[in-house]
């Protein structure tokens, strides 16, 4: 064939297999770090290609998504069948297919393998986890299996790199030889009633054929042995102990992304601050310095600061996935989440979103079901993230009276704080429930999920997941977030303020005036009629508007707009100063106070529900592969936030007057 004429022409080899078969470990063992990661055109299915050279021949290894069948039901399965058929744009038809078959779960893995044998391409079976199978008393005669399948079978122990070179040899040899014959299902098909649909007949006949293969190739030594790993399972899915263990694991996961990431995030902030100080010291005051310090550096800092949380969360998720716990966690939580139209797999993404929605939304990659994944992504930003906490703390502390709620130690500010967290959860549940019965209505979503055997996570695979998540965030989302922060900077800086000639103007007053005269400030005045019903004056409207790109800037903006200069919310005196100034603020031209309890509550409720985070919207766009979903998220969250703030202010005012 001409395609194999040139010796330099790389061979294209497809790696297919069921999920949880050690496919990723085998990919790393064969090809190392992938040379190309992206999405297949038009779908959010990950494309991963690695290049290695064996005996002078370059080989492109294409890692296909884990799948149980080739029926092309889901987007993942469609990608697998398109790539194997050679109809995927940008990828040549594979010269050889490597099917990963888990030796501990031979029958079910042979289902996909037997479908591969029907494609008429040279095929090699990589028999993984054969060491575990031997421990369990399952002996597999790989030569016998090869004879029955009509293709080479290579036992491998990928973490120990056993069998890897022999697998590479077999791939080279197979690519030069004829394809194996398709399995003969005819006699088994005739045994199944003809009235069944073709796919059902095929599945039943295929398993009947597989049963004969397994009977020939598997030698069980005695009764199946119960390993320690199997006993762990009965504890970790136990009603009481399983729930307790789950709570502990989730607590550890949550505290680590909340607390362990903090030092690294502080370090990044400090680094950006000193870079800004350095830039300020060498550049003359002017638009360039402002762009560099307040636009670009602030933007870079705002992107990089997410990396520690993303890395830590993916370290956890990849380790939990690698050892098999992720599926158990989904099993334990499914009933709770199924009630509102989500599934057990939504739990970790939603929990992580309490720290930050960005890693949470990225963690939704572990949800195979498209509909569940999208629904999880859409409600994840409703979880109160760590950026909302300073806002809650400031307003609860300053404007919610510190009185006891029934019990002497239960203070009202703490109750309000807890209520704000609960509000996010309740609204998310309601939104998920509503969407799953309207926009996302469809056939019932199956929850047919394998609970993989317990095993040690492979450090190489875990680290690769972390590297990949952080890398794709920086590359895909980072650039967009950076561009966005420059745009926001421009809106808050231009047009240049026309300052009155009053020489008595302080720096802080100058900054305040500049913001008021900028596009952002003008927009704040423009939207005043919209925020009036929430009890806000135009300055608050302006501050809320300025915090749409990132809600954590609201305290700083409030400081600037109330002529306080830049307030560092972390610094004690800055915060008290801000509180004092906010408490003194009055409506323009009157002595009526702006901040009352209903106003503070309406502001906090608005912040709890509003999509004030451009980075989250960018990530939603990237992860769903469509710009419709960030628009939907932004619209529904802003609408809900306004309505809830309106109700809180109006009811609050009515109750208190």
């Amino acid at each position, binding site marked *: 064939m001409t395609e194999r004429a040139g010796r330099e022409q790389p061979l294209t080899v497809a790696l297919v297999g069921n999920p949880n078969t050690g496919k990723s470990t085998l990919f790393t063992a064969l090809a190392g770090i992938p040379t190309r990661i992206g999405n297949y055109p038009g779908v959010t299915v990950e494309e991963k290609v690695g290049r290695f050279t064996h005996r002078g021949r370059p080989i492109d290894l294409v890692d296909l998504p884990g799948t*149980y*069948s080739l029926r092309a039901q889901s987007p993942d399965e469609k990608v697998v069948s398109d790539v194997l058929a050679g109809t995927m744009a940008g990828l040549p038809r594979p010269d050889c297919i490597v099917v990963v078959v888990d030796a501990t*779960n031979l*029958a*079910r893995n042979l289902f996909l393998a037997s479908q591969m044998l029907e494609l008429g391409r040279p095929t090699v079976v990589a028999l993984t986890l054969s060491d575990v199978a031997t421990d369990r008393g399952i002996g597999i005669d790989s030569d016998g299996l090869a004879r029955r399948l009509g293709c080479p079978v290579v036992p491998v122990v990928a973490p120990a790199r056993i069998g890897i070179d022999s697998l590479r040899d077999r791939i080279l040899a197979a690519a030069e030889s004829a394809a194996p014959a398709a399995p003969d299902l005819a006699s088994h098909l005739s045994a199944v009633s003809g009235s069944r649909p073709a796919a*059902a007949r095929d599945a039943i006949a295929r398993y009947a054929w597989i049963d004969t293969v397994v009977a020939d190739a598997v030698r069980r030594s005695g009764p199946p042995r119960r390993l320690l790993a199997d006993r762990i399972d009965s504890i970790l899915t136990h009603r009481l102990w399983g729930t307790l263990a789950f709570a502990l694991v989730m607590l550890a996961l949550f505290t680590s992304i909340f607390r362990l990431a903090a030092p690294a995030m502080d370090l990044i902030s400090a680094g950006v601050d000193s870079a800004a100080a350095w830039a300020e010291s060498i550049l003359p005051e002017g638009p360039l310095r402002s762009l560099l310090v307040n636009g670009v550096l602030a933007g870079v800092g705002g992107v990089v600061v997410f990396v520690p949380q993303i890395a830590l969360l993916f370290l956890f998720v990849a380790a939990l996935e690698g050892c098999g716990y992720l599926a158990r966690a989904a099993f334990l939580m499914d009933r709770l989440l199924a009630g509102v139209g989500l599934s057990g797999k939504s739990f970790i993404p939603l929990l992580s979103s309490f720290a930050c929605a960005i890693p949470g939304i990225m963690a939704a990659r572990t949800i195979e079901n498209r509909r569940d994944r999208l629904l999880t992504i859409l409600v994840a930003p409703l979880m109160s993230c760590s950026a909302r906490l300073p806002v809650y703390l400031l307003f609860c502390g300053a404007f919610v009276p510190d009185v006891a709620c029934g019990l002497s130690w239960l203070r009202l500010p703490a109750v309000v704080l807890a209520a704000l967290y609960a509000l996010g959860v309740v609204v998310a549940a309601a939104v998920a429930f509503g969407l799953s019965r309207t926009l996302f209505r469809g056939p*019932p979503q199956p929850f047919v999920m394998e*609970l993989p055997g317990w095993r040690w996570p492979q450090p190489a695979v875990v680290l690769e997941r972390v590297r990949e998540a952080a890398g794709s965030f920086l590359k895909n989302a980072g650039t967009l977030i950076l561009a966005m922060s420059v745009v926001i900077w421009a809106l808050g800086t231009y047009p240049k303020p026309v300052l009155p000639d009053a020489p008595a103007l302080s720096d802080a007053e100058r900054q305040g005036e500049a913001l008021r005269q900028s596009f952002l400030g003008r927009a704040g005045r423009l939207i005043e009629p919209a925020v009036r019903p929430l009890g806000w004056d135009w300055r608050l409207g302006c501050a809320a508007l300025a915090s749409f790109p990132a809600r954590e800037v609201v305290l700083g903006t409030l400081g600037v707009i109330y002529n306080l200069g830049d307030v560092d919310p972390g610094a004690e005196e800055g915060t008290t100063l801000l509180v004092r100034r906010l408490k003194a603020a009055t409506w323009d031209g009157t002595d009526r106070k702006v901040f009352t309890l209903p106003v503070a509550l309406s502001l906090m409720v608005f912040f709890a529900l509003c999509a004030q985070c451009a980075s989250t919207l960018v990530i939603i766009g990237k992860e769903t592969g469509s710009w419709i979903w960030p628009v939907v998220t932004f619209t529904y969250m802003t609408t809900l936030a306004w309505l809830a703030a309106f109700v809180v202010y109006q009811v609050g005012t009515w109750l208190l007057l």
Partner: protein
Amino acid sequence: MPNLDHVEVGETTRIVDVPGDDPVSLRLLEMGLTPGVTVAVVAAAPLGDPLELELRGYRLSIRRREAALVMVAT
């Protein structure tokens, strides 16, 4: 004939058929729940659903609603 969702936790039974032609029934067949296979209901999640099954040497979790699609021997 009883369905798999009525089998008590800890019991073992044999699959008679998954007669439906809907996508979920087909997926169950593809996962190896074919006629004649022995299946054990190993556990139920803390809130009673989903179920943990053992069949063909591996563990599978399905919701009771899906288990109701599986006909089993008495």
